[in-house]
């Protein structure tokens, strides 16, 4: 038979378990609903010049990837090409003195209009998450891809 003290202790454990389950549920809900911030509002880890950035990757791809991969970077350079598809508008900065090695920027949905408004030859500042640099066997040159980009203001 349960004594009064035993009942009180049992109740305390139940409340603690309930609070724990509630907290756990809240964490899971929070993780499930996590979204990326607007890149325009995110602080950059690095600010670089396009030509120097490409040079870093060409000289030491492994080192550059270790340094820049998944970091938020502002790249200052000139628009070489705008590539439009059904739902995309990518901006490219090509270094014609470096075997046409290039950086390509894929924009966040809310900033797509900014990309579409750009013209070849525009001097721009783009902020985004650097995915990776690699050597393309297809194009026989180096390239660096960015995602979740926005114009840096």
């Amino acid at each position, binding site marked *: 038979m349960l004594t009064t003290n035993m009942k009180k202790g049992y109740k305390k454990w139940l409340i603690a378990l309930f609070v724990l389950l509630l907290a756990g549920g809240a964490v899971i809900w929070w993780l499930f609903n*996590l979204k990326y911030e607007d890149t325009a509002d995110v602080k950059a880890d690095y600010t670089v010049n396009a030509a120097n950035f490409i040079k870093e990757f060409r000289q030491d791809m492994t080192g550059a990837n270790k340094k820049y*991969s998944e970091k938020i970077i502002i790249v200052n350079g000139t628009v070489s090409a705008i590539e439009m*598809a059904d739902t*995309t508008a990518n901006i490219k900065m090509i270094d014609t003195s470096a075997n046409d090695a290039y950086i390509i920027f*894929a924009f966040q949905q809310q900033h797509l209009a900014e990309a579409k408004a750009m013209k070849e030859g525009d001097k721009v500042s783009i902020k985004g998450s650097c995915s*990776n640099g690699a050597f393309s066997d*297809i194009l026989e040159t180096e390239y660096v891809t960015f995602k979740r980009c926005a114009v840096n203001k």
Partner: protein
Amino acid sequence: MKKTILSLALVLATGLLFAQKKTTTSATISFDATTSLDKLPKADNKTVIASLDTKNGKLAFEATVKSFTFSNPKIQEHFNSKGWMDSDQFTTATFKGVINNVKNVKFNKDGSYDVTVSGDLTIHGVTKPIEAQATITVSGGKIKTTSDFTIKLEDYGVNGPAIAAGKVAKEPRITVAADF
């Protein structure tokens, strides 16, 4: 004589125009591993490199794995982690293949052509032969290639508790689109 040389030059130029290797750096690949339990494992890669040789039908794709963009940062992190795609080690997924019945495709005439594509798909450092249906649409000098197929993650050494728990599809759908 001059007319003959000019005619030959024009024929050669036209032939070269339509026989050249075409490339794009903005092909897209979508990866959909959603299940009834989890709608989050879904991503797009919009900076895929693709090439198409209209003469011999050779087709190739290169996709930076970290460029597959998920809406949820935690899923993005898991996808690239050592236990999944291990994208620090295996930075690029590739396809090298050929359009099997390329002679049936008139690249200089507007139209829609159903084709089969076969070749080697390399994901997570593992290469497997695949075959898929694709559609080539020619319109106003532009060539659009689309394809929709599934892969088995375990064939490429990608498995984990989330798959076993039914939160990630064992055979995600891959959708490819390239405009040349």
